[in-house]
């Protein structure tokens, strides 16, 4: 058992190192090595799936390499060995057919549930019709009358062509900037109806989720709910001819008030105040909460729910029911979530078996909050709370 958990510690350590290399170097985007975590619940789920899958792959890869390296070290003629004569082992061969199968099944289940969530385009707060053209994007907000085209920004164009000696390094966001960005409200479910007028394009902003192909004569749907105000950049991802590299996508996620103001400024009919979800409209400032040294119970539960849905729900499900069949235990009434709080905090910090170590990615406040949430929601009512300094002390 200790042997096994040591292996898993190696897996999560490797995953954490890779995560740190890739993600926590925003100042050096130039050397970004990993998938970004994005700004929606779904992109967080995708990121977690990606990291778990990567860790499993790296673990098996290294395992095979180690066995091979030992063999190369020991079983060489130069050491005067006599070759063995075995050439089969039914037990081994069955084992290495069945075990990978089981590992795959455990990975496929959270994959499938995320896929189901991706496909749910119902209950849109904002709907936008997106049409790809060679080589620009057209956006139409059907209920407001707002309609515009979005082209590569002029300074990127100048740098591409070298006009007046302008070089790519001289412009900000070379090839990732447009004249008119798409504007959407924060914390609102945005559904895009994506099509094309000529050839196939693909609409992709990594921070908002995966690609969706824009296919002439067909409308594909994509949804996202951005949880942070900001500007997110992407570009066409399907080869569409000469200008393929030159049709970027920029999405500005703004507050509900700014969104309504923007619609009016573009001469559109602003949605009624109630059309956008008030409760979520400007949302809690999770980033600020995550930096706090103390949390009230309600702050802890708010932040905890947010962290839980982003990091934990892919495996333990929104309800806390987990997927026991795939080896992801329920949190509802679980010995960890209802037992000693110190053990609970340790497990979140250091991980266990398939569960990655979150100590490297989450702040003290986030870990305290998610522990508090898991103990007092999801059908649990332990009543206690974890404090950020308690988490700091256990790292």
């Amino acid at each position, binding site marked *: 058992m200790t042997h096994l958990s040591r292996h898993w510690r190696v897996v999560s350590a490797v995953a954490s190192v890779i995560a740190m290399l890739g993600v926590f170097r925003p100042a050096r985007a130039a050397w970004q090595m990993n998938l970004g975590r994005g700004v929606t619940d779904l992109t967080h789920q995708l990121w977690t799936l990606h990291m778990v899958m990567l860790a499993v792959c790296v673990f098996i890869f290294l395992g095979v390499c180690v066995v091979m390296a030992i063999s190369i070290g020991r079983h060489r003629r130069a050491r005067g*060995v006599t*070759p063995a004569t075995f050439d089969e082992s039914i037990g081994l061969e069955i084992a290495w057919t069945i075990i990978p199968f089981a590992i795959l099944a455990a990975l496929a289940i959270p994959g499938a549930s995320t896929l189901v969530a991706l496909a749910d385009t119902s209950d849109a707060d904002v709907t936008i019709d997106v049409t790809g053209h060679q080589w620009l994007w057209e956006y139409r907000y059907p209920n407001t009358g707002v309609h515009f085209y979005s082209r590569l920004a002029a300074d990127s164009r100048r740098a591409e062509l070298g006009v007046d000696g302008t070089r790519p390094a001289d412009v900000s966001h070379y090839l990732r900037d447009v004249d008119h960005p798409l504007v959407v409200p924060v914390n609102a479910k945005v559904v895009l109806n994506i099509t094309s007028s000529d050839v196939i394009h693909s609409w992709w902003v990594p921070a908002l989720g995966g690609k969706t192909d824009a296919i002439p004569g067909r409308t594909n749907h994509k949804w996202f709910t951005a949880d942070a105000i900001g500007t997110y950049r992407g570009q066409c991802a399907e080869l569409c001819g000469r200008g393929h590299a030159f049709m970027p996508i920029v999405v500005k996620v703004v507050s509900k008030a700014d969104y309504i103001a923007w619609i009016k400024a573009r001469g559109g009919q602003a949605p009624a105040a109630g059309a956008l979800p008030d409760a979520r409209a400007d949302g809690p400032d999770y980033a600020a909460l995550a930096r706090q040294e103390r949390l009230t119970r309600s702050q802890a539960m708010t932040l905890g729910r947010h962290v839980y849905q982003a990091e934990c729900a892919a495996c333990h499900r929104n309800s806390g029911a987990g997927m026991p069949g795939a080896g992801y235990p329920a949190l509802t009434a679980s010995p960890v979530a209802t037992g000693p709080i110190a053990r609970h905090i340790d497990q979140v910090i250091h991980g266990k078996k398939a569960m990655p170590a979150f100590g490297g990615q989450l702040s003290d406040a986030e870990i305290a909050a998610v522990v508090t949430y898991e103990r007092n929601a999801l059908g649990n009512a332990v009543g206690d709370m974890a404090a950020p300094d308690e988490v700091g002390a256990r790292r």
Partner: protein
Amino acid sequence: MSQISQPGHRPVSRPHGVAPSRLARWFWLANHKDAGAAYLVLAAIMFLVGSGLSLVIRSELFAPGIQFVDPAVYNQVVTLHGLIMIFGGIMPAFTGFAVMMLPAMIGAPGMAWARLSGPVFWLLPLAVVLLLSTPWIGGGAPQTGWTMYPPLIMQTGASLPVFIVAVCVTALSGFISSANVFVTLIRRRAPGMALLRMPLFGWTWLVTAFLVMAVMPVLAATMLMLGADRYLATDFFGGPDGSALLYQHLFWTFGHPEVYIMVLPAFGLVSTIIPSFARKRLFGYNSMVYATVSIGFLSFMVWAHHMFTTGLPLPAELFFMFSTMIISVPTGVKVFNWVATMWGGAMTFEAPMLFSTAFVVMFMVGGFSGLMSSLSPVDFQYHDTYFVVAHFHYVLVPGSIFAMTAALYYWMPKWTGVMYSEGLARLHFWWSVVWINVLFFPMHFVGLAGMPRRIADYNTQFTDFNQVISLGAAMFFLGQFLFVYNMGRCLARRGPAALARPWDGARGLEWTLASPWPHESFTQGARVDARELAKPD
């Protein structure tokens, strides 16, 4: 059992007992060694051309901004790089190894349809010339990449029909040559060489040939439908109901088995070479055969994993995710079996073994990134990025091409009677193995960071890694001239003489022939000694 004259084992390269003229000999290529050599020479030239095209790509991507080629030309280079490497390089090279080696490995005097080899082979240079002429025909070559998706391909100018004919001709050639290999393996094995005793390279080619015969007609038909849309006013792929997607389904019905067509023979080569240098029989021969057959079967059921982002209905997304994940099980079995073959052996690391070992490790890298991509929701992020470019290049270059390199070092002494320089070969190996990773590994990083594939120009955040990648490409390319030189020395018969069995652990009927091997072999049938079988009774 020796020297038994078997029905069907008549001498094939000299019909009517008359020595053919040189022209007739090279036209008909009735001798399987001539035919194999022709395929390998064509493949070598095409690898050079395809690599040259990739160097154009890597030059343009060395820095942001447009430096060398217009984006329209860049796209054409991308299209031709893929097609030349696949249809001009990898497939002819594997066919070359099959035609050259399989008759000798199964104790046959030649291919089943000996005089079909030549005409079928000569279709390929024709197709390649047509393909390479398209950039100079009004409007240039298609700008679609090797996948040739409509509606974009319909924007191609006057070169479209030439292009379609070229692809159809390669499909025809591939179909007939594979049928020839298939029939040879089924009908021409020497007595005593049961199917389940045959070298694994034979098994992997048996399945490959089946796949080729199954999917080449699909490719050709799909191409002809494109042509009909252009010239016969049909609307297969241009309809208002999004029928461009129909093309993708048809293309990947061909395209996914094609992926295995380009890697199964490599499995066979490596499964032949590793036991030779481990001095131990291949571990799990039967499970290797079953794994090969299952991969062939499953390869028909996973095509839409290339289309996860096209808006497939949810049940289809789920089905293709699961079926794709399952295909990694038999692939894993193969890797584990290779390692188990090494385990307990008495290994030496001459060049064929070095390249085969590197194959196993780096093929795993490509296999694992493939497994990651099978997870459909995450593939929405990976799809059409450099992560995928890294994935399939790991499978094809340090995968298939390293296996071919290993095989050339392995059999060149048999073909020429001359040993290559082991020192140069080691230098070639270490040089290649370092630079290939400098070339392809950072592609994972830029892909995950968000760089789409097939773009002529990129955001400045991707500059650093792209410079590393381009450096790797140039250095890897240069290193291959060591290989060309080393092989050229053998072909020029310069170097120490090779023994009939230069590798003391090698098994197989081909090693019972002298080195260099005679132009005609096993004309009176082969004597199958159990010690030469891949799997003893």
